[in-house]
């Protein structure tokens, strides 16, 4: 374990740095836009209100809430303090519900959906790609075009297709929601079953898209590795094919894991849009309703949380990589 310390520290430092940078960006970007954000929001909200005193009162209330009447730096610290406490302010569109509550309600749906879906998709996709590289022939010729087609579909495209085929036409699955309309969340079997049923389509859309993307990459990596010098040498030393395949896939997998870490941001983005298609009660739909309701605090908090999730995932994958690539440990121990 000792050998890993430097590596861990390195990754941890990077994680903190990126988190801070993301935080700053999340805070600054909207406020950099010309104009007073509060005024813009209030003006949109207050459309139709003729009572100017009323509008003024709302404006002052929100300014107080936001702290836009204070200098930027002070705003930043207030914001930071609040975030650490978990206070993201009140949601505009669902007033008086606090933003943190809205997000808390939806974040678990998203994590429960995307986290397993991306992992499952990654595993299946890489296995298929590796098989295609090894078996060649018919399997490869079928897999390639299918993967190319799937990987060219945007995430929401796959979601729509699955929705239409399985939910609308075949009516095997429900078209939207995380659970039946008539059910209140509780721990009964009926509810859990409803959740599972509603889970299927969004889950498999994300899995399918991930498979498409991974299979092609892994196939190329595996082909490259299969032609590597050490494969030939190992063969010439009499080592059996099965063992060599083990070598090849382990080596081909390493860059795939790195690739996952780098592309997790985009994957999550696509998955969020898929959630929207299914009106799945996760962060995607929350974001959408935030946008449609001009709910600035909700949007700001949602994007921050999403970024944090992605950064954490990235960090975890990098740590995992340190364990599976034996060279990392070796490089540290000298």
């Amino acid at each position, binding site marked *: 374990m000792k050998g890993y310390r430097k590596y861990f520290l390195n990754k941890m430092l990077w994680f903190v740095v990126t988190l801070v940078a993301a935080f700053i960006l999340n805070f600054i970007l909207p406020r950099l836009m010309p104009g007073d954000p509060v005024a813009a929001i209030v003006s949109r909200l207050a459309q139709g209100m003729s009572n100017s005193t009323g509008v003024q009162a709302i404006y002052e209330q929100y300014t107080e809430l936001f702290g836009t009447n204070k200098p930027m730096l002070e705003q930043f610290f207030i914001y930071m303090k609040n975030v650490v406490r978990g206070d993201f302010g009140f949601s505009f569109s669902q007033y008086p519900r606090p933003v943190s509550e809205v997000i808390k309600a939806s974040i678990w749906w998203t994590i429960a959906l995307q986290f397993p879906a991306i992992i499952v998709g990654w595993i299946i996709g890489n296995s298929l790609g590796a098989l295609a590289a090894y078996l060649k022939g018919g399997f490869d010729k079928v897999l390639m075009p299918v993967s190319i087609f799937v990987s060219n579909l945007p995430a929401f495209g796959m979601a729509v297709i699955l929705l239409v085929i399985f939910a609308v036409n075949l009516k095997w699955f429900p078209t939207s929601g995380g659970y039946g309309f008539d059910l209140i969340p509780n721990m009964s079997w009926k509810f859990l079953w409803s959740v599972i049923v509603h889970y299927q389509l969004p889950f498999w859309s994300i899995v399918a898209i991930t498979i498409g993307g991974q299979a092609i990459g892994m196939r190329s990596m595996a082909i490259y590795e299969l032609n590597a010098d050490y494969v*030939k040498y190992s063969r010439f030393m*009499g080592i059996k094919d099965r063992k060599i395949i083990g070598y090849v896939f382990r080596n081909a997998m390493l860059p795939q894991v790195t690739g996952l870490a780098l592309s997790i941001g985009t994957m999550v983005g696509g998955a969020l849009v898929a959630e929207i298609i299914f009106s799945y009660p996760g962060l995607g739909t929350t974001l959408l309703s935030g946008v449609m309701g001009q709910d600035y605090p909700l949007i700001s908090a949602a994007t921050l949380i999403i970024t944090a999730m992605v950064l954490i995932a990235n960090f975890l994958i990098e740590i995992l990589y340190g364990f599976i690539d034996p*060279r990392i440990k070796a490089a540290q121990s000298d």
Partner: protein
Amino acid sequence: MPKAMLEVKELTTKYITRFREDVYAVDHVSLKVDEGRSLGIAGESGCGKSTLALSLMGYYFPPLYYTSGDIVIGGRTISGMNPDDVRKSILGNEIAYIPQAAMNALNPTRKIINFIEDVVQAHDLYITKKDIYDRARKLFETLGLPEDVLQKYPVELSGGMKQRTVIAVSVLLLPKVLIADEPSSALDVTSQKMVIKMLRQLMEIGYISSMIFITHELPLLYNVTDDIMVMYAGQIVEKATSHEAVFDPLHPYSKGLMGSIIVPEKGLRDVKLTAIPGVPPNLKNPPAGCRFAERCKFVRPECSMHSIPLQEVSGGRTYRCVLSETELREAYAREAHEHAK
């Protein structure tokens, strides 16, 4: 009568290209290496020497295919054998191969000792891991490699170190024949020397019974091998002892090779540099007669008429030319005389 470790008779192997054409990279090659002897194979790029090395192993990967001929290792004919048997009982423990640029021959994510364990276990030898480790350690020690290399990953070793490690691993199972394919070409001069020293040491100690050393540097072989074979366009054009091949080449191509290299050896310092004009023929459609004919200074009409057999000269020396030994020597003497003017 010295035992023949490796005997090859009329071996022919071909490549099948993407366009389904046959390229006979190794064309009716015969050779013999006795116990305790080493044979060098020299030739320019593309002459087929690497293909020959691969062909000798008895195991063929597409696009390389076996056509005809015999390969006998230590009295055992392997040319007709079932590929699985070849992998299990021949590759690695009867005949071993050190690839070119052996630096890349090691799996980057496997420790050296683990790779050695894999090699041993692939041959169904029931040795415990501890025994494997001891054996490896002893071998490494003998060859001057530090013991801690065993616990390292390839990325932690220098280029020269990797090359020597590969050599050590190749001889671990005490093969009868070791084929070294340009083992020193990718290294700096000091490492080159260490590699060659190591190979000779292996022969002396007896870890290997015979060796084939492939290179494009003909004079290098003088210090390494007992005999030398010169290859051109898929065929053997001369075979002689090292001394004969370097100082007294018969075939015009060998002569040309020696003449186009700067060699600070005694006796060769006065030789002037000349290049051999032209390029080797395309092996898809090799010319009918002598393959060197179009570049040869002493070409005659009968050279291109029919294929030319190997002629034997006293002492087991052979060469492939229509001209007799005497004619060739006269021609060379005349040439040297003209240059001196």
